[in-house]
């Protein structure tokens, strides 16, 4: 009995790990975005190609992640061989150094060099590294030197693409005509870490307008998240059911078909019940992933009902973990 509890606990731990919110720390094991081009990019010295931003990143890797305080070098085809330094924190996010904004760059690449702060992006439910203090050089002789801040934006739909406004206060320096303009500048909402940030002069009252929009978008995001959570829960449920069906097919004739089917029905029934439940209150969207909580509760309850059959319980726990893993991969 104790063994089967432990197994259920392990399955649920795997479930929670698989459904935890996206973390924006650099993880070069993600083959969709990164390709190791030289050396050891798992546990050693290696060069990795960031295919999304078309950058090369070289340094020491530990478990395909950055090592806090170590120096990494980043370059881009348009930097013509020049390499920029980067240093990461214990959370895997950038602490200081240069960020090349190479996405969609055409003859020149803008580079921010300085320190980075942390921002909890309410619309992506993730923590990001954002420019804090330094120089944003556009690569064409215009530089923004001073203090940066960031305001998350919803974009087309919350939870899809990391968007936000970069806010700057300091000196806009034009090295070509030796002019300087000091003041507040705000960008249109742009993809974080992606393409060119284009600043426009702003009056202080514009910040109030952005704040109002942020609050409005938080309300809209509640609906966006609920829809996505529902889709995610169903995607996970179907993946689990698929794996459960395989287990049941393998154990047919053992007399455990009824328990397995009950498990499947309890899972679907639990999800249906949740889908028709009243909406969660506004502002709860940014807390722990409700989809993960729901799957945890429903599968926990369902596994409890087959606890008498330890072999089946064990097989179903594995099937649940496998289903969750597959649904997570499909939902990327």
């Amino acid at each position, binding site marked *: 009995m104790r063994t089967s509890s432990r197994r259920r606990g392990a399955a649920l731990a795997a479930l929670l790990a698989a459904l935890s919110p996206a973390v924006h720390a650099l993880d070069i094991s993600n083959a969709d975005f990164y390709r190791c081009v030289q050396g050891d990019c798992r546990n050693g010295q290696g060069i990795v190609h960031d*295919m999304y931003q078309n950058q090369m990143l070289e340094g020491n890797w530990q478990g395909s992640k950055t090592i806090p305080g170590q120096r990494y070098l980043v370059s881009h085809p348009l930097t013509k061989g020049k390499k920029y330094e980067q240093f990461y924190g214990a959370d895997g996010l950038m602490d200081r150094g240069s960020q090349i904004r190479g996405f969609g760059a055409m003859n020149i690449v803008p580079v921010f060099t300085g320190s980075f702060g942390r921002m909890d992006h309410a619309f992506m439910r993730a923590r990001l590294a954002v420019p804090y203090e330094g120089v944003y050089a556009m690569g064409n002789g215009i530089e923004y030197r001073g203090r940066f801040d960031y305001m998350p934006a919803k*974009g087309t739909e919350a939870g899809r693409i990391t968007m936000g406004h970069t806010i700057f206060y300091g000196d806009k320096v*034009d090295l070509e005509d030796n002019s300087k303009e000091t003041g507040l500048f705000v960008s249109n909402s742009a993809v974080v870490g992606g393409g060119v*940030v*284009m600043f*426009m002069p702003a*009056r202080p009252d514009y910040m109030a*307008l952005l704040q109002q929009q942020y609050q409005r*978008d938080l309300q*809209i995001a509640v609906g966006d998240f609920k829809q996505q959570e529902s889709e995610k829960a169903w995607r996970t449920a179907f993946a689990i059911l698929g794996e459960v069906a395989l287990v049941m097919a393998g154990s047919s004739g053992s007399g455990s078909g009824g328990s397995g089917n009950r498990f499947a029905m309890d899972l679907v029934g639990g999800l249906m019940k949740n889908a028709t439940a009243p909406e969660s209150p506004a502002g709860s969207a940014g807390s722990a992933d409700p989809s993960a909580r729901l799957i945890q509760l429903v599968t926990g309850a369902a596994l409890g009902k087959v606890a008498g059959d330890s072999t089946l319980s064990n097989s179903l726990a594995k099937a649940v973990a496998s289903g969750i893993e597959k649904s997570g991969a499909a939902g990327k």
Partner: protein
Amino acid sequence: MHRLTPNFPRCFLLGLAAMASFGAQALEFPNPPQPEAQALVKRFQADYTRIKADPNYFKPPPTPMAMPCEVPQRELYTPLGLHMAIPEEAEKIRLMTRKQLRDMGMDPDTAAKPMQYNNIRITPIKAACAAGKLDGEAEFLVQFDTLMENSNNINLGAKTVKMTMKMMTQQASRYFLSFKDGKIQDGDKYHVTQLSMRNETLYDDAQMAATMSKTKIPDAPEPQVSLTYMNFGAGQMATFTVSMAPKISAGLFGVNTSFQQQLDSHFTTGLGQSLNRMEMYKNGKLFMTSETPMKNGKYHGEQVQVQENYLKASGMRLDQMPGMEKARLVTVNGVEMLETRNCFIAGVLTKAQTCPKD
């Protein structure tokens, strides 16, 4: 029995020619509310029919007249739309554009190459001089070619592809002006321009060139014709452009393009005054209106634009589109349109909740 006037055969033939040149498509004309604009639409209809019926309208006369007196190039180029062909003026514009492009995060060395003017020919059709200077009503035929070229580097993984875009035009215009003592006079004036455009994009990568050739949009099969009516003293200008607009659809082996005749009409009032108003129509449909306060010749104050709700076509809400903090949906003549507000301070687009009025 009615007697035919002596002009009948000529009018009949002109009418037939006009019908033939319009083909199966008839132009849809706008119906602006302002009486002045309505009058201009009527005038355009008559002028366009006459111009399309005359195959020699944009050709020099068989025996062209000589310029009646020597006119400095600058005095002639500016009123005849060749301001940018004067090297010093082109340089001023280039420097201004360079700054704007850099502010927009672009590389000015590739993006800001000035337009090249070639093969400029100015033929007086009607011109007279007094005391050695242009004087009185005048008409000129202006012909020239332009070339605008820019290059960009596109990053494709490990390789960088150089893309060179060439935009070439052949233009011929008839200008109707009035001079006094060599200087252009205020009052009604207009010009008609025929423009043929050819675009070419080159890649220094054979694979890229082959891929892009499948999605190339062909050049318009007919030149576009624009008629511009101006009265700067009254702050008014109207432009009517008839062009062949491409209609693109996906095909089995690339894109399919067909062309439809389109009329774009722009009405501007308040030129040189404190409030510049613009109305734009696509065929008979109101497409966009704009009101911009002006100060010292620059945008200054809150610009209000109302345009076709393009978000509706893609099923998007206002909050799903970046940069719409100050936008709202409004109804104009029973049609839902998108209103956006931008703040300009001394010509610079500035983010603001409340835009200064002075």
